[in-house]
């Protein structure tokens, strides 16, 4: 990794920082980060990494150093970012293509997500998938629990290694 900062001015997170909540702690709420306008969010990430102006308004945006800076940029751009209250810090990684970055999600959130899906919760994919695939208004349906878990695992696998595609 060629650079990482967080809003406390510290470097990369300590090993194991993303581990599960301590034993006995309640499982975190499954409230997730939400984005309304994915294209504006994606363009903002592009603007940070390339230094190009954002497509929506032609302005340049520096890489945010704090969660507040991130929210301010998203607010200005009407990204529609909702951050759950349990998210307190921001860590930004930038890396060269020669480095494989495995972004490991918090294990308690993975477990909570699996439990909720098994209990019949809808798999709410971002709406741009349906828009692009011509099935607007639909949400995915699964014939079995195994199929649902396959899809869940595939999604995690996809976004963990997708490199800007």
């Amino acid at each position, binding site marked *: 990794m060629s650079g990482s900062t967080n809003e406390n001015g510290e470097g990369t997170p300590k090993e194991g920082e993303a581990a599960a909540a301590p034993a006995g702690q309640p499982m975190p709420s499954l409230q997730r980060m939400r984005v309304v306008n994915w294209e504006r969010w994606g363009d903002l990430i592009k603007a940070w990494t390339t230094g190009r102006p954002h497509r929506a308004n032609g302005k340049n945006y520096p890489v945010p150093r704090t969660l507040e800076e991130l929210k301010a940029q998203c607010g200005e751009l009407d990204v*529609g*970012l909702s951050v759950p209250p349990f998210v307190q810090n921001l860590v930004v990684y930038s890396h060269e293509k020669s480095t494989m970055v495995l972004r490991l999600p918090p294990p308690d959130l993975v477990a909570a997500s699996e439990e909720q899906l098994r209990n019949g919760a809808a798999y*709410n994919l971002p709406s741009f998938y349906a828009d692009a695939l011509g099935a607007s*208004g*639909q949400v995915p349906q699964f014939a079995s629990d195994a199929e649902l878990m396959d899809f869940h695992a595939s999604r995690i696998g996809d976004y963990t290694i997708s490199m800007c595609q």
Partner: protein
Amino acid sequence: MMDGVQGAGMAGAGSVGGTGTPACPMTTTPSGRSGWPPPGYRHLFPAMPPPLPPAPPDMALRQSLAALARAMQASAPLDQRGDNPGIPAGYTYLMQFVAHDIVRTAVAFWQLGISGRETRDLRGGRLRLETLYGGGPAACPYAYMTEVRSRLRIMPLARHDADDSSGSPLRDIPRARLDPPPPGWQAGRRLPLDEALLPDPRNDDNSNVSQTTVLFAAFHNAVVDCLTRADAMPGMRFAVAREAVTLVYRRILREDLLRRLLHPQVYAHYTAYGAEFLDDGGAATDRMALEFCFGAFRCGHAMVRESYRINGDDERELAGILRATSGGGAGAMPLSRIWTIRWSHFFDIQGPGLPRPNASRRLRPQHSPGLLDTRFFDAIDDTFRAGLAYRDLLGAGVAGLHPVAELWNYLRAERPALAALSEMSDPAVRRAALDQWLAGAGVGAAHAAPLAAAPPLPFYVLLEAEQECSGLTLGVLGSVIVAETMLGLMARDPLPCEAGGGDVPAALAQLAAAAGVAPAVLAPLAGITDMPGMVRFAAGAPGIGPGNPAFV
């Protein structure tokens, strides 16, 4: 989404200074439009001096409005503290339906600020369910069943959602593909149903309002069924059912929707026997008050939730509800079961095993993030501000409404007892509340000063509701505007069966006589005073249920 009442109201751009004396930089300029208001519109309270015709909002004003819109859309916890226990979520979409039933603007007011084009209101009768019936079976045959023209057309849900044994329940609006197949379409594949066959296609702006339309259509068909079983004169069935349904609809507006929405003491004032209205319409009774359409009634946008339980425990996001339409997702139409409402999730219907309804959001200056969706509410000018809040504020600026201060001055003079209910009738208290909110929301001083001096009416109405009523109901000024408009409109323009001044049972008996049936045939309608009652009656419509998902 809820651009049903196009445009919005704000005491900014042209309207500040109302009585002809510009009071701040956000006032009318000499380049203001002539011939304003547009055909079909007027200002509230004819006795008030009219505001100067508004000028198109300049860049400085639009930037201030954009800053305010951003503050109204800033991310805030969407938790249960923002829920309104007094107004279930179904009323949000009833209000959208009602807005469509009041005005139908040719060109949205916010577009006028950009293009300088003209607009007009196209709605003929108001609060007469024209939004449902259009001109009736002769004028809008596509909305009515071919074999039984007295019935509104309700179509099956998508087949893949149907129970194999029972078939698809009739729970969707009529839709069609009228153009030739799109390029690349393969024979045998389902054509995209990209047209909503409704007299008012705005009722397919989102799946919740299209489902509300189905609910009213089912109610109408259930009434037609009663008349048919009683062997009513065939030629009278449609007309009598329509008037009976409209009678019940108006009663629900008076006794259910407005009771929930308005400040309790304002509601009591306007529903007391012999209540008088300040807004008599003057010489333009048939025109609609801009301050209602583009100011106070915009409050419905703040009631929209980010997600809903539609017919089960799953939370479905607003993005999907906005897309489940012929305009947003034609390839997925007819409507799927996923978006088909079980009404006990939207109205407070009591009964064993019935769920508690989704709450609407409290009335306060905050829009759900989903109303930023650029697919529906993309940026419209060089402020690059997306979202419905900016459109509301800009449209209000274009409309040139009575300024908030002028409205309060008038109310204090004419209805001092009502004005005394609100601390914000005092200019100093009002200004302090505005300053505090704008500072707390992070609106910079350069924008906050003009906004506090001349608050846009749609914003002020929400702030007042939050400050005075914890967002549970509208505040005093917002309630007066809505009551004067809606209750005044129904009082000035009674239905034929109401013209004699009798009560609802008497009006229904009159309608039954017109259809040649006994009064008992329509008498059950006299017991319907709220939306839950209407849902239960509509559940008896042919083909509706019980189905999957359940109707009630």
